[in-house]
């Protein structure tokens, strides 16, 4: 577990350079400011849970990291290298498509609605990108894919199509698919929100075991407060495009300092 001492500002001071670094990132949709001068740093192997009310910008953070959205101002860096911009001479300019594609290989994402490829089996879903993007041979991709699917507990469902799998199984395939690309950072966007309650457990268990085993760096937007509390290293509470409060998971849940955090946690716990 990483030791870090958060101060009361939104900046987190950590021992080593952050793997993911948002610096004063702003994003607006017309008149609506979704992210407001966001500063966020995630260390290697750190597991960060992002919680907050809807519209607070949580999902946008992940989508921008995955290059699904552009930023309006600020800078995002991965492992010291700029993601949203690229060096030109000694200046930084907006990244072009080639740079984004190169950097994108460091990030993997699991979506709320799985987004599995319906015309491919579970195995093929996990083999597709390694073959097409990484240029792996069919044999290598097959081995990697079946190994990962076994790790998520679906060794017997390799030849099943998504329509033949339950929601929990589909999401586990989605996790395996993302991991097959060996990203440095894994993003989880409310991955249990679209699942029936009894299916959440299997997905969370997989996240927990894989996260620990592979020492993954993770950013998770989640409503699963119990999971965040006992699994995440750090929790960030978002409100209106800013981090209202962040800190070690247990501390934040047991003793929230900020009033809005307290309100939110009260409302969420009441609903359970």
């Amino acid at each position, binding site marked *: 577990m990483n030791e870090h001492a958060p101060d009361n500002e939104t900046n987190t001071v950590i021992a080593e350079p952050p793997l993911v670094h948002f610096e004063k990132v702003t994003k607006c949709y017309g008149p609506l400011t979704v992210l407001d001068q966001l500063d966020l740093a995630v260390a290697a192997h750190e597991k960060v849970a992002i919680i907050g009310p809807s519209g607070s910008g949580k999902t946008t953070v992940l989508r921008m990291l995955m290059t699904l959205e552009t930023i309006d101002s600020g800078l995002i860096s991965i492992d010291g290298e700029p993601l949203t911009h690229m060096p030109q001479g000694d200046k930084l300019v907006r990244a072009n498509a080639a740079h984004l594609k190169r950097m994108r290989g460091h990030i993997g994402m699991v979506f709320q609605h799985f987004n599995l490829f*319906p015309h491919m089996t579970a195995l093929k879903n996990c083999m597709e990108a390694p073959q097409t993007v990484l240029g792996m041979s069919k044999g290598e991709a097959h081995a990697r894919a079946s190994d990962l699917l076994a790790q998520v507990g679906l060794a017997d469902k390799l030849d099943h199509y998504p329509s033949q799998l339950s929601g929990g199984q589909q999401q586990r395939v989605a996790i395996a698919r993302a991991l097959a690309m060996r990203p440095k950072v894994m993003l989880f966007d409310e991955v249990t929100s679209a699942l029936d309650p009894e299916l959440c457990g299997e997905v969370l268990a997989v996240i927990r075991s894989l996260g620990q085993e592979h020492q993954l760096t993770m950013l998770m937007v989640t409503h699963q407060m119990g999971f965040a509390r006992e699994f995440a290293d750090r929790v960030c509470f978002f409100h209106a495009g800013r981090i209202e409060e962040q800190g070690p998971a247990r501390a934040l849940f047991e003793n929230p300092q900020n009033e809005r955090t307290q309100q939110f946690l009260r409302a969420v716990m009441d609903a359970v």
Partner: protein
Amino acid sequence: MRSTHSATLVVAILCFGAGLWVTGFSSLRDFLPELLRGVIVTVQVTAGGAVVAVVAAFGAALARLYGPKPLRWFASTYVEVFRGTSALVQLFWLFFVLPHFGLTLSPLVVGIAALGLNIGAYGAEVVRGAIGSVGRGQWEAATALNLTRAQALRCIILPQAFVAMIPPWGNLFIELLKATSLVSLITLSDLAFKAQQINQNTLRTAEVFASVLLIYLALSLLITVAMRALEARAARGLRRGRVG
């Protein structure tokens, strides 16, 4: 797709078949061989036109969606012009006007080209619509896995769009089949031409035209059945299966 309609189609065929049988099936034997010769030409034009249509449709749709500006403009013009004028006008234009530009093509080639391009223009919209109907999540998943747009299109999007476009293409192919009757007007000996010919020779108008209508109906049904089978095969994995 006309899903419930094959039943009515079958009933219609049976009724007409019965009607013909009553009015003297034996007479059908007299001109059936001639008619079948016409059917061969009709099938040729339909098949050739179908190939041209599919190629033109995909080309135009992809050009309009992803091509550079001049290509996009060219594709849009093609679609608008061929959808805005009727098949007969296009057919006649290619048949009567092209020779003036030094390009004399056989009626068969003119027929296949004109009708193929005509249906292809409508097909371009079908292809565009089908590509657009694939959920955004699929594109996002492809991006998250770092596929290029071309790879995403080829491996993820088009296979799914393909299934969605089979029913409308089925309807377009039937329109193509019906449009082939127009090539009789540019001296091609298709089924419609034979019908006119036999009618003029034998004056057994009702029988001839009724048989011809029946044959076209049967060919339509063939297309419907074939497309239905194609859809079933292509949708293997995409069908809403049992949730295990």
